């Protein structure tokens, strides 16, 4: 098979790309960090929220009994 100029076209377009690659990468990385921070918070605190509600409910019951 001869030359494939579709591949050449790809190279030319990449060479002509302005130097914005790092900015895009930084934006994506900050998105990743935000997602992972939020998911860590959810992982850690959502189960604890259940406990908070249960203890809150229990203390109400105790108050009612007393």
């Amino acid at each position: 098979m001869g030359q494939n100029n579709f591949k050449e076209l790809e190279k030319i377009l990449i060479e002509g790309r302005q130097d914005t690659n790092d900015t895009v990468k930084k934006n994506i990385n900050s998105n990743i960090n935000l997602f992972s921070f939020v998911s860590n918070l959810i992982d850690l605190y959502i189960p604890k929220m259940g406990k908070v509600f249960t203890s809150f409910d229990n203390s109400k019951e105790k108050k009612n009994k007393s």
Partner: protein
Amino acid sequence: MNKCVINRIFFINQLGFILIINLLNPIVTIPSLKSISDEDALDHYLLTQNVNYFNILYDRYANKVYSKCVTMLKNAEMAEDATQEIFVKILLSLSKFSGKSKFSTWLYSITYNYCIDLIRKDKKDIILSFDNYSFEIEDQSTFDAEIMETNVYRLKDVMTELSTEDNGILLMKYQDEMSIKEIGDILNKTESAVKMKILRAKERFMKIYKVKYGESVA
């Protein structure tokens, strides 16, 4: 010490731990970055959430995704935005990647569909009518060779005149060298429908080339 105070200290410690982990995440280095396969990088990212693994994939494919976007959207700024959006989309749907196809095929399928959807949404696509023209491409393989050998600047010129969908089809076929089945999976079409779409895209390519340069490709 009051129980409430202890809880608060525990809460602050945990928060601090999460913050430190998130800050250190990009700093942790990965050995033998270049030799790792796409699929391994993806698996490691999902397991460790280390951003460096995702960066490997970004560094490998960002320029290719950009070049496809700029060919299909015909606008450099839109292509930059699209590249970012596509990688965020990839990030959010990593768990959907089944591993049946190569990572690159999956990434390109998202790229093509994103660009086609974007143009459809903006209704900016070029609608060309070729009712008065008929091209008979008798020898597909000969024509394939000739279309691939078209002068690269003429190729670029003709592709700016083609619709986003036709550009996408031609890029999948000639630039990514995808099989008919792979293209069909990406576009959610049968193999015969894909063959017809490729044929139509080639016909339109030929027509534009002839109008622009007064000679046929073949």
